């Protein structure tokens, strides 16, 4: 099919005068300046852009930014090779050479594809059971080679990296409506601020959602705010910069990527920002719905479809069906329809969807209220979807009447998940808000506050007012008290949502929970049958929520399904803690401080992260995070855990299995040490006795 069938004739924030050539899996394609690799692939009609991790199932684009689970690529060759990037986050440049990972020779024709037929033999944790006889170590090299995504480069990295330190009164993370409003208020108050945004252009979702702010189109408001911020002397705006870690005492680590202007330019820059106050306006990520065959290329998030159509002028498909439990998908459907894409129907699992449905129906989009997705048709590309009427409460089907809708793109939206990774990392607690179907911050910390979608307020008018208030309060607390002006106001939009995680169970077909790791609903059930009830155990056993995307689209669904399977409420299941370095950062930039030190890159990178984490990573200074339960002391904790008292400096040694590394663990050294520092008499015996006794 020609490229024109997928690229819209007009619109989009791309520069059509500047054509860029690139290669993907060896084939040559063309895109425009302003495209990402993902949007350019979609515009060239590439539907299968990746293969799944375990079963090598064909997968297409699913998200449009950091949430993308499917399309992992590596770009460049030789020393320039960069593995495990998300195609959605790679800005297109002329001569880009990208390859899909975990498949050969290409994503379209993968020789490992027949592995799908063995899916029944490979449930969650199969490797714990099947490779035990005669010896796991015989299988290990093979299994390790079969697993894994990209290939690490073997040549030294020729690029330059830098690190910088920065101090400020208010650090605003996120350049969407809430972040911009917060930065605006703090700037006007006179504070010294840093605004961080990880996209190439400011505005966040305002780049593709259509809103009216202060009486003008949202993008006009964005550029007005941007010029005001750039004109302010004490405000620094960092674009293409990802905040990947939030550490003790408001130390935030940022990774700034440079535009590819010249080969000698600094490639990435590590920032250590120590802020008096932090405003987290990190937004929210749309959540898919779990139903049979929901991984076929062509199934994507409604926000992603809207993003591709509006920002990049790409048709995600020719005929679209929406499956939703929230109001924001109606805006996406409207935007697609306005760009000439046929919207076959909006399937809303809510029985009474409210005003959005009424206005969509008035605009001529059929709304099927109270229906749910029963299965997707198609294998290598979406051909249609079966829908069935749902019972009140959406737990079971109301009738056997199945209706098939033909479509080639299926946009799903099960609500929104606030991006609270940084907030949780620094110790913030979450609570489940059923009316928003999301885990939201329970309370702001003393110097860290969440605003906008990150705090669970998904409507644009709330994002603006919350962001503005957060920026003003943060600035006032640092002593900057100038007048901030009027809070920006937007025309109100609906943001209603009903909790809906999965269609009623269909035992004959796989329903995917985590697309990146091939985790199905059946895998979660298996884990529960095998008595793994803690979310942390289930995560490790099934691998739901691991790997490059860290479960940005899947965690909440896995959590809700686990709650359902174990008969608990969602707050009782709890959440997994997001790991340190919440977005992937390259070893090169993490070890930028000492580029020529004689240690391996990985070693230096780990040391650096350890330094950022400070106390938590230190073996000497103890912190009580590991010991829940009031004033329980370490001795009691140790006794309870293993029945032995705690030897504090030799506790990490296990004499029977590990080589002795610490000088303290060798008895003769301990004695010498005791002699030299503490005087001879009782301690010599004591050292011996202590070793035997403990």
């Amino acid at each position, binding site marked *: 099919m020609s490229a024109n069938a997928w690229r819209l004739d007009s619109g989009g924030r791309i520069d059509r005068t500047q054509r860029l050539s690139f290669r993907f899996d060896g084939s040559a394609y063309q895109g425009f300046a302003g495209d990402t690799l993902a949007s350019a692939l979609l515009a060239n009609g590439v539907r299968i852009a990746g293969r799944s991790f375990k079963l090598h199932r064909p997968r297409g684009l699913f998200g449009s930014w950091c949430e993308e689970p499917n399309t992992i690529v590596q770009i460049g060759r030789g020393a320039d090779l960069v593995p495990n990037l998300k195609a959605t986050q790679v800005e297109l440049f002329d001569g880009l050479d990208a390859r899909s990972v975990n498949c050969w020779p290409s994503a379209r024709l993968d020789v490992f594809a027949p592995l799908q037929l063995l899916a029944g033999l490979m449930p969650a944790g199969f490797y714990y059971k099947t490779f035990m006889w005669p010896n796991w170590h015989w299988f290990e090299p093979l299994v390790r080679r079969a697993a894994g995504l990209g290939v690490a480069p073997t040549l030294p990295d020729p690029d330059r990296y830098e690190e910088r330190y920065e101090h400020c009164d208010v650090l605003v993370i996120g350049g969407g409506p809430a972040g911009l409003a917060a930065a605006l208020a703090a700037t006007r108050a006179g504070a010294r601020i840093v605004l961080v945004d990880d996209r190439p252009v400011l505005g966040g979702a305002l780049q593709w959602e259509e809103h009216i702010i202060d009486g003008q189109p949202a993008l006009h408001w964005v550029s007005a705010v941007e010029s005001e911020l750039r004109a302010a002397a004490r405000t620094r705006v960092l674009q293409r910069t990802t905040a990947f870690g939030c550490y003790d005492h408001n130390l935030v680590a940022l990774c700034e990527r440079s535009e590819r202007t010249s080969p000698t330019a600094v490639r990435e820059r590590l920032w250590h920002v120590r802020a008096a106050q932090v405003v987290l306006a990190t937004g929210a990520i749309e959540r898919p719905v779990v139903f049979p065959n929901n991984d076929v290329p062509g199934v994507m998030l409604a926000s992603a479809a809207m993003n591709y159509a509006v920002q990049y002028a790409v048709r995600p498909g020719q005929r679209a069906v929406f499956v939703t439990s929230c109001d924001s998908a109606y805006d996406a459907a409207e935007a697609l329809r306005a760009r000439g894409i046929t919207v076959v129907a909006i399937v809303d699992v809510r029985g009474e969807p409210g005003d959005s449905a009424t206005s969509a129906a008035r605009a001529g989009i059929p709304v099927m209220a109270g229906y749910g997705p029963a299965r997707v048709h198609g294998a290598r590309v979406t051909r249609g979807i079966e829908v069935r009427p749902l019972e009140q409460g959406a737990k079971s089907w109301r009738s056997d009447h199945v209706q098939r809708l033909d479509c080639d793109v299926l946009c799903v939206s099960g609500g929104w998940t606030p991006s609270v990774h940084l907030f949780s990392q620094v110790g913030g607690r979450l609570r489940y808000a059923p009316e928003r179907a999301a885990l939201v911050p329970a309370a702001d910390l003393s110097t860290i506050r969440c605003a906008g979608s990150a705090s669970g307020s998904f409507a644009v008018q709330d994002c603006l007012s919350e962001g503005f208030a957060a920026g003003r309060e943060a600035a006032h607390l640092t002593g900057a008290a100038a007048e901030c002006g009027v809070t920006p106001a937007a025309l109100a939009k609906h943001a209603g949502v009903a909790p809906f995680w999965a269609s009623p169970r269909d035992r004959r077909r796989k329903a995917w929970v985590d697309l990146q790791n091939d985790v199905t609903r059946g895998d979660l059930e298996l884990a529960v049958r095998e008595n793994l009830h803690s979310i942390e155990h289930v995560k490790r056993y099934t691998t739901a929520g691991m790997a490059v995307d860290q479960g940005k689209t899947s965690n909440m669904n896995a959590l809700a399904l686990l709650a359902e399977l174990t008969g608990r409420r969602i707050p009782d299941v709890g959440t997994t803690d997001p790991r340190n370095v919440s977005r992937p950062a390259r070893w090169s930039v993490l070890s930028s401080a000492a580029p020529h030190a004689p240690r391996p890159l990985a070693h230096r990178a780990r040391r650096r992260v350890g330094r950022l984490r400070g106390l938590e990573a230190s073996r000497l200074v103890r912190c009580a995070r590991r010991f829940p339960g009031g004033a329980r002391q370490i001795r009691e904790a140790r006794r309870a855990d293993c029945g032995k008292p705690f030897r504090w400096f030799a506790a990490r040694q296990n004499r029977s299995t590990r080589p002795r590394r610490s000088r303290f663990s060798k008895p003769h050294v301990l004695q010498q040490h005791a002699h030299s520092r*503490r005087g001879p008499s009782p301690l010599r015996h004591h050292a011996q006795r202590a070793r035997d006794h403990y």
Partner: protein
Amino acid sequence: MLRIPCPWCGPRDEPEFRWGGEVPLVRPGPPQAVTESAWAEYLFMRDNPKGLVRERWLHTLGCRQWFIVVRNTATHEIQATSALGDPLPEIRP
């Protein structure tokens, strides 16, 4: 990374400092009179409570002075610091 307010140098980053253990920690003596269990207690056993704790820190890469820090082991909040020789800072719950 903590930011520790040294009583002499002001707030500095944690890598400049060295941790020196909980206080008060009284060495039993004289050595001949001390039982082995008392030595074991002194050498190996620490309270490590969850919550506020007083501890010694050394500003290794600064003024090289020892001082006392009141730190919350659960939140890493630093409540107070004081010079050695000054009265021990109060722990405010």
